[in-house]
């Protein structure tokens, strides 16, 4: 019964995503899935460790370009490309992590954004010989068909990305229940107490940083394989706020937040840019309004009401997950 409860919410959420697949166009659903993986990393950093990062595109680009390099120059197997992308992201975050996590959270955000800009210029100008600058790397035809799940077909790519998103989500959910997850929340709320208990804040933060950014790199690698194309635009500073916006849109620190946020954000982006073409104005206003209204986001506002609805017949809610953990 406990296991069922552990899985209950997410099975419903992902079932809804699967249903979405039937009613909505495939590219939209694919983008939502990848975007929610992208956001999960940011959500973990912001909601659990209290680090706000405007530099997520840097790690997204690290993953995407590592995959692109492999598929463009060396091999044809997208699965290996995916692994290369993950390794690339982990490497970058391991190199910059020890430097960055020592900083206060305000400096942290600024330094990360600077890193995103640097990677953007690195890919656009400095390494133009390898990355072909603004033209980007095109390798859609290089991706070989694979047995079982053929990633070169959008249809089967959806199934794969679905499984990956579910796995990533389950991983974060598992992390929440471990002592390590509690430590993360501890460093956010009161780092002195964590130190008194004998844990190293630095190690906790570094691990969290690497985990979150490897997730982001995974999303980057998925983007690369899905689009078959990578350009410096992926780490463009003007898109730096996207994951933060989605995280806040969905609700910071909630487990379903990234999925809700990704659906809402991608949907709005498509709808509004079709209607008026000036969607920055709208998203900026929305962000300010959500922040002023109490930064709970869509899911954070909906959750208590949904609970009431579901548990009305069965007395008080027993599962207090999410609400108790929202930092």
């Amino acid at each position, binding site marked *: 019964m406990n296991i069922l409860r552990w899985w209950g919410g997410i099975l419903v959420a992902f079932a809804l995503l699967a249903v979405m697949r039937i009613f909505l166009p495939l590219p939209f659903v694919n983008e939502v899935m990848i975007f929610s993986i992208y956001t999960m990393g940011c959500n973990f950093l*912001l909601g659990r460790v*209290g680090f*706000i990062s*405007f530099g997520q595109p840097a790690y997204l680009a690290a993953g995407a370009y590592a995959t692109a390099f492999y598929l463009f120059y060396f091999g044809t197997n997208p699965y290996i490309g995916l692994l290369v992308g993950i390794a690339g992201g982990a490497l970058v975050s391991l190199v910059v992590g020890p*430097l960055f996590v*020592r*900083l*206060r*959270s*305000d*400096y942290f*955000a*600024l*330094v990360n*954004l*600077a*890193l995103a*800009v*640097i990677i953007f*210029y*690195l890919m656009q*100008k*400095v390494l133009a010989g390898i990355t072909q600058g603004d033209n980007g790397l095109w390798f859609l035809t290089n991706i070989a068909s694979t047995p079982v799940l053929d990633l070169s077909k959008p249809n089967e790519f959806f199934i794969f990305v679905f499984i990956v998103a579910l796995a990533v989500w389950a991983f974060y959910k598992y992390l929440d229940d471990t002592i390590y997850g509690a430590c993360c929340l501890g460093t956010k709320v009161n780092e002195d107490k964590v130190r008194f208990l004998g844990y190293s804040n630095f190690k906790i933060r570094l691990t969290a940083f690497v985990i979150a950014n490897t997730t982001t790199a995974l999303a980057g690698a998925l983007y690369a394989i899905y689009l078959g194309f990578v350009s410096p635009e992926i780490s463009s*500073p*003007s898109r730096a*706020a996207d994951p*933060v*916006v989605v995280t*806040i849109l969905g609700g910071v620190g909630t487990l379903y937040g990234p999925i809700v946020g990704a659906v809402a954000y991608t949907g709005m982006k498509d709808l509004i840019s079709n209607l008026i073409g*000036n*969607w*920055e*104005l*709208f*998203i*900026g*206003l*929305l*962000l*300010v309004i959500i*922040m*002023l209204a109490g*930064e709970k986001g869509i899911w954070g506002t909906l959750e208590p009401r949904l609970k009431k609805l579901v548990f009305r017949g069965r007395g008080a809610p027993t599962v207090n997950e999410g609400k108790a953990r929202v930092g």
Partner: protein
Amino acid sequence: MMDTQLLIAGVIFGLSIGSIFFLMAIGLSLCFGLMRIISLDQLLYYSIGAYITYSVSLATGSMWLGVLCGLAMGGITSFAVERLVFRRIYERDITFSMITSFGILIGGVGVIKFFWGLVPRPVPIPIDAQVGIFGTDIPVYRLVVIVIALLVYAGIWLFLNRTIIGKAIRAGIENVEHVEGLGINVSRLFTITFIIAGTLSGLAGGLHAPLIMVDPQMGLEVLAFVFMVVIIGGLGSIKGTLVSAFLVGQVVSLGSLVYAPLAQMAPFAIMLLILLVKPTGLYGSTLVKR
């Protein structure tokens, strides 16, 4: 060895670009020092200043009038934003202000796109004259920009050290509760500081406009450099901001003489180096969120 003429031109170029960075970074730095907010919307006032300069100089033919209107508009917009938004969030966490101001920045870029469209606009340089320094021709306009930045620094210094309001602001940077306890209206102090910051950002935009093309994304393009200036100098320190602005300006300018892509990379490397030695920047104190 590098050509001397090229070197002199490079140094002047670096000083002028550093001046622009300084004018923008000072707003971020002051806001952080006094209100403990990170006000990314300063980059919006910079874009607004540049666009107003473009429109006014197109209409009247005088670029200096445009700069005046631009800085006034920067001040007015920042006043409105402070009243509508920031007033409600001073009490909140610092990341909160960062996200909110980023929302304002993106929203503002949307407004700019609505009014002026996506096409980059040129602004004519008001002073075409060149002046010879050690046998190198230097555009006078760049020297004027440097002089204006130094005047602003002197003005800010005098304001903070010689006037009551300035002294109150400095005291507020140390401890805002004590200032409040002395019966000084702190919320008015905040408004004044925010307007000063917005006005200076508008001025930076207006002065920068003739040197580059004015386009909706211009704020986001200088974002990284302004951040680096603020981080290297230390959040909340005026002197540190001046030093690091000129440092970053020189690194950008001289770096691009040695190897073009270095212009964007070198400041980042320097920033990492300084953060390694001193995580709060050159002149930053160990101020934490109160």
